[in-house]
């Protein structure tokens, strides 16, 4: 017997949906709509076609019309700037993923299994980058490895220029995204009963073998979900990347910085195409995390 929802429940529901519609759905809807109808994003289009018609004749105007109807988003997706931005984003996030997994996994294990002096301090410090504005990370990295600092100038004199090259993007991504991996994986490790690890050791397994035959298989979902979130955050890194990279178009643009720079440079369609790629990526990550964590 389903009871009728009260007026207050309805009010709560309506206010929630309205909030969601205004602040999230509408902007993303505009982005998606501009892909379906590119002229929405470029109202001056008809004026431009008309000008071409006046100056160059009807055949040239028809060509321009065809060109734009053949989806400018697809065209700009194939432009050098966006192709290279996709490459840079994939390569840098791959490297930062490897670093986060290699160093974050042992740290997550330590945080979940051991008690030691200063653990609460370390625990809090790991979470700090989650709340820290990324530009703070950017300026910190510049002060640590920038060309005028002791360490930075030493590295540069040995041919290791890092800050203001595409390599610095990796550092920025690790800085902001590692906490997502470590937190999620440490929670996943904690959910594996300690007794199972003890049983494995008791049956003759070395600590390493215990880890990869018992702990890791039982926490695999959490580890993968943690990596997915970390990777999505690294893909989306913007503020620190903008500060530490040299921002050369077609060379050290990531997808996020490409959205920004192309927008100011007048390449609206490039911005839209990069944004759509990121939207799809984020959506896929979210779905895979949900599937992994939901099923148990």
């Amino acid at each position: 017997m389903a009871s009728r929802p009260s007026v207050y429940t309805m009010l709560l529901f309506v206010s929630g949906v309205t909030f969601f519609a205004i602040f999230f759905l509408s902007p993303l809807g505009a982005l998606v709509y501009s892909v379906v109808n590119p002229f929405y994003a470029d109202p001056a289009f008809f004026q431009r076609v008309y000008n071409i018609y006046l100056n160059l004749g009807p055949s040239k105007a028809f060509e321009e019309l065809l060109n734009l109807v053949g989806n400018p988003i697809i065209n700009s997706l194939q432009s050098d700037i966006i192709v290279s931005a996709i490459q840079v984003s994939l390569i840098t996030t791959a490297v930062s993923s490897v670093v986060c997994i290699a160093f974050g996994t042992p740290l997550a294990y330590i945080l979940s299994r051991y008690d030691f002096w200063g653990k609460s301090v370390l625990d809090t410090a790991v979470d700090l980058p989650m709340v820290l504005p990324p530009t703070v990370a950017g300026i910190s990295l510049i002060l640590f490895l920038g060309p005028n600092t002791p360490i930075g100038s030493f590295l540069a004199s040995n041919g290791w220029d890092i800050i203001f090259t595409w390599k610095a993007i990796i550092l920025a991504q690790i800085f902001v995204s590692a906490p997502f991996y470590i937190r999620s994986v440490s929670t996943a490790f904690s959910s594996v009963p300690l007794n199972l690890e003890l049983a494995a050791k008791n049956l003759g397994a070395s600590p390493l073998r215990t880890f990869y035959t018992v702990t890791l298989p039982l926490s695999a979902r959490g580890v993968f979900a943690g990596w997915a979130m970390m990777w999505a955050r690294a893909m989306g890194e913007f503020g620190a990347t903008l500060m530490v990279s040299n921002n050369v178009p077609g060379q050290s643009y990531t997808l996020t910085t490409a959205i920004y720079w192309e927008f100011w440079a007048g390449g609206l369609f490039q911005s839209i195409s990069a944004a759509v790629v990121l939207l799809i990526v984020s959506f896929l990550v979210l779905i895979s995390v949900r599937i992994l964590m939901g099923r148990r």
Partner: protein
Amino acid sequence: MSREMAFLKVEGISKSFKEPVSLREKLSGVERENRVLRDLSFEAEKGELLVILGSTGCGKTTLLHIICGLIKQDSGHIYLDGECIDELPPNKREVCLVFQDFALFPHMNVADNIAYGLFTRGIKREIILERVKDVLKKLDLFPLRYRKPETLSGGEKQRVALARALVVQPKLLLFDEPLSNLDVNIRKSVRKEIQRIQREYGLTSIYVTHDQYEARALADRIAVIHNGRIEQIGKPEDIFYRPQTEFVASFTEAENIFEGRVSETRPTEGLTEVTVGNTKISTAFDPDLQVGQDVKLMIRPEDIIIAKTKPVTSARNVLGGKVAGFTPHGSMFKLEIDVNGVPVSSLISRISLEEFKIKPGSNVYVVFKSSAVHIIK
């Protein structure tokens, strides 16, 4: 070593855990310790089933974890088969533990669970298959070999846990309250299974429990542990009928424990008389007892017979009393009788209870032999 050493020798084990303290206390150097084991020693012979009996939280699990190396002791030594194993990591000790919650690997099927300990030892695949098959058959697990642990019943899980430990042929097998997570009605059959397997393999075993009935049914010897020390170690009859301390007596539900004073010794009749309150109780003659000495007496409730009329009997102690009350106790009834101000409890069957028309206030006789009276020194 010249003197022959016991198969397992646990010598002077102590362990304390730090208890959490507040930050302010930590900064001012305060540390609170919980001393779980205090200088605990015992020995076990090869092939023996030694039951460690103690109340919950008395350090039994800690002791097992120390023996198999999962926890390091603060002091003391452990010798297994003539070899000191203090410094060996858990995966190098030939000691297997059957966990209280079974600790089966949920992502592996039954056969893989059992084979785990063999793979870690780097044994050849064909030999592993053979040995797993053997133990599967021996424990009636063969039809379940591809099942995942979550689909098994408690008793089946217990058998898998046992098989997983047996298959590696350890020198020492440890059981951590293996029946406590099982339904009451299957405990008996699983207990018998454990006993059968232990005898069949001749495995030296240490079995930890808080259940005195389980201990009595299983043990070759029992060690009662209290406050982190061994209170008494010996054959089940010794623990139950000749307890050396009041704790052992009360833990094994020897309910009638009285303080009295030796009033008379009669060596010719083989008797010592002890006065408890206004009542005289005869016990077997003990040359160590002097007249006037304060002693503690213990009589197990099951050693006391109840009679409605004064019986003609060879039993030395026939005392009149008044029934104070009775309560169900398993399949029997526990009768509380007031004997001249001394509260005596006894067990009686339902039939006798009805036959004697016993009600609170009824007059009855309590009858027990002088040999049923045990003196705790």
